């Protein structure tokens, strides 16, 4: 069994998402290095959940994440901001109706 690299190996990077309490969303808490998913999960438990309060963890290889283009954040997101008709305040309700 020949080893590919002479001791200068670097385990791949994983992004860690933790759920703090049932029903809460999984939120990004940081990253770590691990050779595979099982050890990534174990390491995530020790690194990011060692003070309790976490009820679920996701580990995702960093390379699997595709991010939105930051240089084009303007064209990418701003068009969403002027679609007033997506927001409830845009619509009028006849007077006199309560608890719609």
């Amino acid at each position, binding site marked *: 069994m020949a080893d590919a690299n002479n001791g200068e190996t670097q385990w791949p990077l994983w992004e860690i998402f933790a759920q703090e309490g049932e029903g809460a969303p999984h939120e990004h808490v940081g990253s770590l290095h691990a*050779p595979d998913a099982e050890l990534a999960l174990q390491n995530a438990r020790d*690194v990011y959940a060692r003070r309790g309060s976490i009820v679920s963890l996701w580990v995702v290889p960093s390379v699997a994440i595709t991010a939105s283009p930051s*240089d084009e954040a303007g064209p990418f997101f701003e068009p969403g901001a002027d679609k007033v008709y997506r927001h409830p305040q845009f619509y009028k309700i006849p007077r006199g109706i309560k608890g719609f």
Partner: protein
Amino acid sequence: MQQEAEKSPDETALNERFEARIAAGETIEPKDWMPERYRHQLVRMMSQHAHSEIVGMLPEGNWITRAPSLKRKMSLIAKVQDEAGHGLYIYCGTETLGVDRAELVDQLLSGKAKYSSIFNYPTLTWADMGTIGWFVDGAAIVNQTVLAKASYGPYARAMIRICKEENFHKKQGYEIIATLASGTPAQKAMAQDAVNRWWWPSLMMFGPSDADSPNTAELIRWRVKRKTNDELRQRFVDLTVPQAQAVGLTLPDPALRYNDETQHWDFGPIDWDEFWAVVKGNGPCNRERLQARRDAHENGAWVREAAEAYAAKHQRAQASSAA
């Protein structure tokens, strides 16, 4: 470092936009455009910080096996473990700037990278565990509370997490010292001796005086740092003097006195020759600290390789069984 003498019109515009964002207090994220110099300064500062956490495990790790009670033993393990965690958070933050952790670790082990000079001092008695928590973590908190507002998002977020966890470090240290100071005469003497040895090195932790700190102005302009070394050092002294008085220990500085005018504690001159000697590798434990890290790294190489080989084999096995 690249010379930025001839900037393309594009880059000038980008640079202006970057400076404007910084001035507006915006947070810079990994994929945002940033000047090469900003990236460089961040990598330097963050990796130094991460290295300090990792090397910082050693002086206290030295007393885990001798902690005098089960409770103290567990607190100390948990604290040193946190330091590993904090190093890890900051390394990961640095990796968002496009530098592998392996590369950063190499820089540390080859002696190229710097880390906090304080960890090159020896831990001689159990009281050092108290003093380190109280002084060194106390100083770190003063520093990090400010860094939690740094302009670079991943650094600031790592700092927020670290600050939350670090508060127990200082408290457990101060509790140890307070217990010793009110203990037997031998315990009190042990505490005073540790305070005498760690006080000046702790003040040096904040780095050279502003006049001799070439990077400070730039880092402040970019909101990576929010306070100068001297400002932070003064804040630490102001916080710590009353804490020493409260437990009946003295600080080894005859010039220490409260200045009614400035409302700060004045303190005597720092021995910068000692500071630079330690930074340059001639502190009492520089060699031992680096050697310990090198040994851990080298002795662990076969473990890291084994896990990698296993992962490769089993990925192949999974892939072929799926096909």
